[in-house]
Structures are given as C-alpha cells and as structure tokens.
C-alpha cells in the first residue's frame, strides 16, 4: 500500500489534529522531513468537527484548507492515516519506530467519485458526527476530508456489499484484500500531539447526560450547529427535532471538580460563549442562560465576553448546577442550581441543556509507546532528562486552538534541534 520511500532521520509527529498538522508543516517548511501519523482516516482531528472558532467565529475548515494545501505542495511531509505508533526504541537522534497502518480498503487510485457510496446500502454510525447520525459503510469522512479518499468500513468486508462496491469502482481503487501492515522508520526526534477527548459526561450522574435526550455536550452542540452536521446546521433538540427557544449551558461539567477533573479545561467558557451566539443567531427570540463559577475569558478574549454580555437575551448566573432532571411529559430538562452562599435554590426549565464538558488528554488511557513523562491526569510534562521526545497542544495541557498552534510551532523547533544535535 505504501509505495513511497520512507524518510530517514526525520521528525515523527504522532497525531494529525491541528497541533500535529502545525508541527509537521512548520518543520517541513523549514526544510526538515516529517512523518505524520494519524489514527483516524483523515487529518484535522477535533477541530475538523468544530463549527466555528472562538472568538472570530470563523470556520475551522478555512484554516484546514490552507494547511492541507501546504501539505499538498510540500514534499517534505509523509503522512499515514488509520495509523498508530506501535513501538519506539532508541534515543535522541536515532529512534526506530514501528507504525501500524490499518486497512482502508481503498488505495491511492481513489478519485472520490462516489460510485461505491451509491451502491452501498449498509449504514454505520457516523464517527465524524460523533455518532449522532449514520453514514454509508463506503464513505468519505466529510466533504473537505484530507486525504480526499473514500474508506470502506471493516463491517462490510467479506460481504456481498463490499463486492458491490468493488464492482462499482471504475478506477481499481478498492482493494478488499488489503491487510494491516507495519512500517518501520528511523527518526531523529518525536513530537506527541495526541490531543484530547471530551470528558465522558455520563460519569457525571447528577447532570443527566445519557438519561435525558435533551441534555447534550458542547462537542455535540458543535455538530448540531455545523453546516455539515447531522441537522445541516440547524440547532434542533434531539428528542423531537424541535427548534430551541431556551438553552441552558452548564459550565465546569466535570471540570474543576475533585470527583471528576480537578483542573480547569480552559476552553469551555469561551466555547459556551461562542455556542450562545450560535443559538442567538439562529433564533431571534431565543434565550440563553449560562451557569458558571468563573468566566475565564483570558487576555483579549475578554472582548468577546463583553460582546456576548451585551446581548440582553443571554444571562449569566454564578452558581454550580446541582442536578438536571426532566419533565417526562415534554422532555424539557430542568436544571437545579445551588447558590452555595445564600443557600437558595434556583430551578430553571429549558428546551436544551448543554454541558460544557472538559478536556481529557488522550494519553490518560491510551498510552502511546513513547518514553514521555505525564502528570497524574495524563498531560505530558516537559522533562529535560528526556530530550528528543516532546509534546504539544492538548497533549500538554488544556488549551485553545491558537495556543495549541503556538505551542506546536515551538515544538517543531525543539524537534529540529534534536535532529541537529546528533
């Protein structure tokens, strides 16, 4: 499957989200060779699933398009999708890395014409939309996906359906015999940009996620508002597809909480402010309430907080949400907020409740086989005794996109220094 010659003595970047893309591109544009490994079928990671960035409210696909264009014209980058690092050995300047690539069942001949999708009837959970809808088992992850190549879901391999896809392809692009393979590379340094995942909201018993349909998470909200999401960008509540007139955001859902994540996830305040604008823009009469502990709109992001505050249909109430229940008749969630100081309890009903769930580093449970020091939460810690392996972005700490890119650019320099020292 991999026909290209694999680079030697290059920089390995683990994770193809915005941080990994940045580290890879910045190093490659400086003249160094890079191998980028991504476990999903496409590059872009979490940001590809966002509707807009705070605080500019611009679409992430705009910057991704530029980054993909940068990859297309830079021969210094080699990338592997559906791939994970299996093992790493060696030391700064000289690592041996084994990369495991899972079969895509579609090769580089694919023109993304879509004929296989047309004949495919089996549907699978749409991972791009966080399982909120279905996609065909022969699919393009999303319209701007990079690489622009279809994927055949393993579910249909060995069935007649796969055979039908094979027959429909005019370009000999489907290879049902494709096997997973291991690729061995030598690299001089490694940057871990394995990113994050949202905190599992169902662990927060009292907030009703998983129990009540109209309690969703902030990452789901991004998909609901995105033009390429399950509702084509219309914010509709899951239980009945009704338009939402009254939305409550619950901040620190799991974050800043000894029982869940003791740290602050750093992005959720601004994410909720941004999502409040999604709701307000779509529904003129809508009302938004944000229950918070502190609004952390740091630096110049304060301007955005000020702007959202000036919308009189958005209210901010300081208080920790004690629990979320549901009106069984209407499926409206009911939020109970405890004002710890006055002891007063507020009860508020909404069409939709959005839990501002936090950031959990992927390294917390999915150990990458590299020798890197992490804190108790799974965030990488810089360790001067371990030169040659670096981390950037949300693998290091909860951080917004601009911060992650900044960090990833610096990590490219560290990785370059390591290849030079040897």
């Amino acid at each position: 499957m991999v026909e290209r010659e694999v680079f030697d003595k290059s920089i390995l970047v683990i994770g193809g989200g915005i941080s990994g893309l940045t580290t890879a591109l910045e190093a490659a544009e400086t003249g160094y060779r890079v191998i980028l490994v991504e476990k999903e079928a496409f590059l872009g990671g979490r940001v590809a699933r966002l509707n807009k960035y705070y605080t500019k409210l611009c679409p992430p696909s705009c910057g991704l398009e530029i980054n993909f264009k940068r990859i297309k014209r830079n021969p210094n980058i080699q990338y592997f999708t559906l791939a994970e690092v299996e093992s790493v050995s060696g030391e700064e300047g000289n690592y041996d890395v084994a990369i495991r690539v899972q079969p895509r069942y579609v090769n580089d001949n694919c023109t993304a014409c879509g004929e296989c999708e047309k004949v495919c009837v089996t549907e699978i959970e749409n991972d791009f939309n966080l399982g909120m809808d279905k996609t065909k088992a022969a699919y393009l992850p999303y319209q701007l996906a990079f690489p622009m190549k279809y994927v055949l879901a393993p579910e249909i391999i060995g069935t007649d359906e796969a055979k039908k896809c094979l027959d429909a392809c005019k370009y000999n692009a489907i290879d049902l015999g494709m096997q997973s393979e291991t690729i061995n590379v030598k690299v001089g340094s490694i940057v871990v940009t394995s990113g994050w995942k949202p905190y599992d909201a169902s662990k927060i018993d009292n907030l009703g996620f998983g129990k009540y349909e109209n309690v969703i998470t902030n990452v789901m909200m991004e998909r609901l508002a995105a033009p390429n999401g399950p509702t084509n960008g219309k914010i509709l509540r899951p239980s009945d597809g009704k338009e939402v007139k009254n939305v409550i955001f619950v901040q620190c859902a799991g974050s800043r909480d000894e029982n869940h994540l003791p740290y602050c996830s750093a992005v959720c305040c601004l994410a909720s402010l941004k999502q409040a604008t999604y709701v307000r823009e779509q529904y003129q009469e809508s009302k938004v309430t944000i229950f918070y502990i502190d609004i952390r709109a740091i630096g110049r992001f304060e301007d955005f907080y000020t702007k959202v505050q000036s919308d009189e249909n958005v209210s901010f109430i300081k208080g920790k949400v004690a629990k979320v229940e549901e009106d069984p008749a209407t499926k409206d969630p009911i939020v109970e907020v405890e004002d710890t100081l006055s002891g007063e309890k507020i009860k508020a009903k909404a069409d939709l409740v959005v839990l501002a769930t936090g950031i959990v580093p992927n390294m917390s449970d999915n150990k990458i086989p590299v020798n890197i020091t992490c804190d108790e939460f799974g965030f990488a810690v810089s360790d001067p005794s371990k030169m040659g392996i670096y981390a950037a972005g949300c693998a290091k700490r909860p951080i917004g996109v601009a911060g992650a890119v900044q960090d990833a650019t610096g990590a490219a320099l560290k990785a370059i220094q390591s290849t030079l020292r040897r």
Partner: protein
Amino acid sequence: MDKKIGVYICSGCEIGESLDIDALAGVATSKYKVPVCKNHPMLCGVEGSSIIRGDIEKEGVNTVVIAACSPREKTNVFSYDPTAISMERINLREHVAWCHTPNDEDTQMLAEDYMRMGLAKAQKMAPLEPFSEEINKTVLVVGGGITGITSALEAARAGQDVVLVEKGPELGGWMAKLWKQYPKTPPYLELQETGIDSRIKEVKSNTKIRIYTGAKIEKTEGAPGLFDVTISQNGKSEAVRVGSIVEATGWQPYDATKLGHLGFGKSPDVVTNIMIEEMAKKGKFVRPSDGKEAKSVAFIQCAGSRDSNHLPYCSSYCCLTSLKQAAYIREQDSDTKVYILYKDMRTPAQYELFYKKVQEDAGVFLTKGEVVGVSEDSDKNLIVDVDNTLLGDRIQIKADMVVLATGMVPSAGIQVKDLPLEEPEGASDEKKKEEKEPPKDFIIPSDILNLKYRQGPELPNLKYGFPDSHYICFPYETRRTGIYAAGCVRQPMDGATCADDAAGAVLKAIQCVELTAQGKAVHPRAGDMSYPDLYMSRCTQCKRCTEECPFGMYNEDEKGNPLPNPTRCRRCGICMGSCPERIISFKDYSVDIIGSMLKAIDVPEEDEEKPRVIAFLCENDAYPSMDIVGRKRLSYNPYMRVIPLRCLGNVNLVWIADALSKGIDGVLLIGCKYGDDYQCHYIKGSELANYRMEKIKETLDRLRLESDRIRILELSIDEYDKLPGIFDDFMETIEKVGPNPYKGF
C-alpha cells in the same frame, strides 16, 4: 525556449458521460493549434500520468494543461517542476460535469469556454525564476527579558547566529524582578524559582549569541535575509546585517497613577503587585507609610484591566500573581490576613490546583465583587468598599495595605516617538465608508525597530497595541515578513507561555530565512517561487501599490517610484489589483493573463439569449466551497464562468472594463469576510476589492452601464450551500437588467 502546450483531457468521473470530449479537444487543436492534445479515461492513474510525463520528456511539452478534476485534487500526481514546466488545470469535474445537465448545449459551452480560458492562460504563463540574492541567516532578537533570552537560546540551539539587543543595562526583564513564580510543574502546588539567572548565564556564555545591552535599534532597513540594522550603544552606532527578527520587547505595567479611584497616589499603603515582588525579595511586607508590618492585605484584581476606562482586556497573569503573592505573605506570617477581591478568578488548566490550594488556606479570603473605592479612615487604615458581592450586599474591608493587581501594556502599544498616528483599524468604519479611503494599518511609533518602511516604523498593531496575528490557525502570521512578535508584546501571557512562544517565533524566523534563501515565499503561499516584476517605464508614481500592500513590500524613492523588496513579498498579488497602469506581473499570474482568460470567453449574440457572467473567486475559500457544491451535485446556472484568484484583492479594474466591453453581462466577485474579524488570508485583500468596486460602480453609472452588473460578496468556506442561490440570484438580476449593450461590438 519555445512554448509547447500539451492538453490532457480526462474523461473519467462522469466527465466523459456529460461532455463531447472530441469537440472539447477540437477547441484546443483547431482554434488554439495546440500541438499535443490527448484524452484518457483516468488521467490521474499510472497510465494517464505517465502519458504526460512522457510528453514532457520526449515531446518537449513545457506547458501542461490538464482538464480534469479540481486543481485541489490529485496534486501529488499532477506535480511538475515550476521552474521548467507551466501548469494550468481546468476544473471539468466539480465545476462542470458534476453540477450541470449532462450533454446539454449549455454544459458543453461552459466546458469549451473553460478550455479557451485555460489555454489563453497557458499561452502566457512562463516558468518561474526564483529571486536569488546572498541571504544572511542571523536572527536578531530585540528585548532581553524571558522571551528574548529564550528566543536567543532556542535559535542558537538550532545552529543559528544570534544578535540580542536589550535596552536596559542588564538582561532578565520583568522575570528577574520576580521573587518566585507560580507552580508550573506537577503537582502544581509549590512556588518555583524563576530560573532566570541560569538562563542569563547560559545566554552570556553561548558563543553564537552576540549581546548588546544598554542598546537600541536606531533603524532597520532592508528585507528578510537582507536586513541592515543599526544598533546604538554607548553613543556609538554599529551596522549589523541579519536575516530575520524576533520582537520580544515585552510589556509595561499599567500606569497605577491612573488608578486614583483605587487609592493609588493618595495613600502610600496602596501599592502595586510589582512592588510586592520587591518586598518579597527583601523578605518583609511592610506598610510604606510607617514601616509597620502589614497584618491584613487586600488585593484588588483587575486594577485597570477589564475596565473600559482603562484596559478593556484581561491581562491574564494577575489572578495567579495575586494568589502567588498571597502565598508569599501567608508563608512569611501566618497571622496576616489576605483578602482577594475579584471579578472572576482566572486560573486556567492545571493552575486550578494552585488556586484550590490557596483557597483552602483559612487565612485567605476570596470575595467576588466590584471594588467601588478605597479610602482611609482616621487611624490610617485603608477601607475597601466592595459592591455587588455574591451576598448582594455592599461590604467594607479594612486592611493595612492594599495591592493593586495591575495589568500589562504591550511595549509596542506605547507611543514613544512623536509622529502623527493613522486612524486605528476598524475604529471608524462609518467614516471610512463615507470617505472611501482604502484601509490602512494602525502603527504606533513605539521606538522598537524603527523600520525604514514606506508604511511606517513599526509592526502594525492589532487592537490595544498588540502586534499580534489576527488568525486563530496561524498565530505567527505577520504583516511584516521576517519579523515575528513573541511574548507579552504579542498578547498578555505568563512567563512559561512566553518561553514556549519564543520557540515558536524563532522557528518562524529560521523558516523565513531558509525559504527566502531558496527564493521561496513564506506562509500562506509557502514555497511559491513567483514574485512580482514591475515594468517601471510605465509607472505613473500613483503610489497605490506602495500604500496598499498588506505586507509593506514596497518602499518608495523621492519621486514616488515603488522600490520592491521581493523577500518581503507574500505573492498575494494585491498590488496587481492596485495598479492602474497594470505594470505589476508574476511570471505565471498577471493582469494580462487573467485579462486574456476573460477575453477568451465566447460571448453569444444577444438574440441567443445566453447571458454570460464572470465570477472571480478567492482560491482559498470561495473556490473550495464551489468544489463542494460540485461534490454535493448541487446545480446552478450554467452561464457563469469562474476565474480563481490568489486573493480577491487581485481584481484590477481593467478586468471589469474588459469584460463589460466584450459584452459580458455581469461580474460577480466572491471573497473572504472583511472588517474587524477579517478572514482574508492577506489581511485586507477582500476589503480593498470592496473599496475598489465602490469606485468602479460610479464609473459604470457615468457610462450608463448599470452598476447592478457588478456584485461583490463575502463568503466563508463553509457556506457552500449558499453558492447556487448566490449564482441564480445574480443571474436573475442580470436578466432583469437586460443584455449588455456592448454585446457584438
């Protein structure tokens, strides 16, 4: 070298099923007399692509025209050395076959027009000759605080020679004034040494780093790879050549004398957080008024920050600094009470754990509220009035000493030199519209770099004086190529972030000289080897190019002639759009090339009732958006002819005039969003296009051509579903306006 064009038409992906390929090839071979014209059912396959390579090698084809899928696809297959081969790609798949009726007359006409347009362009494109000059790769770091020191060290570790200039007598900056720093490493609970002394030692002993302290930059001339910097030190001036620059000049505390309402200047016992660091170093927290130990200390957060009368932004370091200083005080004397009065406690990420620890200290009282005033009672105790507390009451706190957590002002935001200021960006949109002034940068003469640039002496500032990038995805984007801001001058940040930021800025500085040395552009057209060539004998010294380049590429001689600095150039082509004499050209992209494309369009006679409209699309956003329209098989009016542009700011008014005089019925321009939250990748290309179109509309009205024939719109890349409607709506307008009276002339 003689041009030899090869045309390669792909009939795969429904192209062959919806178009008459032979007729299409006929356009190339008969009208354009193309010597090589071939088609293949899968041009991107091994066989197809080797046909092209074979023709290049054996037939001497040096200009390749590929009529297949979008130029965004299969780029690895259709990739040739741009210094030898010119390539033009015609989008028959996404823009024709996938969204128009198969085998329809109008669909075929559309494809044939695209063929003509592509060929017209190919005929005029020339292989690229990269700009070459002896490039210096030294990195100049301005500022010797934590960011500057780290920048110098990081650059040296990457093998670069470094010149470090600090205006003060010593290195270290604000970091050297701190007693300790708040916890940066697990378990995130204990205060840490700043470590600045060892870094200073390291920087001083590094042979790759030349240090100038007590020095300043008198002037900076030149361009990336060729900067000539004059450094003055001890009354002497020295000229140094460098390749790129990191501006790490840091910040100043907000002037506390402006905080009279918080008691500063009224009582000596109202101090700033900076003064607390000095006290901590001395090991005593005493009242300045009487030298008595302060037994109760009240911190006032956001002193000057998050305040529309002072600094509207959050200074980001003050919450943690006050928590740290509370810990200093409590560690020294466990009887001292500390009050922290805040609006929101902002301790992001793992810093939350330190906040939690301080919160648990019974001697620290954290109160959310608004401080309305600080006064003195008869016993010289300070009284802090706090309103809107969570209890809803107004409370009073009595303290021996009050600490103002003052914020950060970027050094680039402080006007030092007495030069006239331009209007700040976005500050008076209304006014701008009325006067129809082209958008200008906001540059504060802060005496940092003293650039000898036509557009002003310093980096252009964003809001509040930070010379930051406005892009979320590209935080090191700079409007002055080769000059990168880092640390607190760029945005408010803490010491640890400054060190990370230094590494990022240095990477960009090194990348810039490496690309420049190869004659290549930096971001966002990284690697592009084209650069503008000016046909000076036709220049009228109108100065539009020198004023409008978003990157300050042009200097000017005393007569007003533009003096290009190609290594500053980002190849956006906005100057091409600005030039009324059309003298600015790239080898593969020029006013003439695009003009030839639109002149190649076949305009049917009026009685055929087939109007023609040109759509100029930004290739970064609107164009990919239109590819998705194809991918989604959405259909739209087939009378539209799309021309992709590097930036909408390339549109030269002559194109509009040429199109209309040829009988084209309308021109649509679709670019990126502009204004305060601009999305244009070249800062103000789409805004300039808008400004220029305002002007042409007046001209049209005078010529009695309806201004409705021109429409300019903003579109984000994810608004593809709107595109068919935009096209159809514009066509409706054009039909209402009627055929262009110049048709047939």
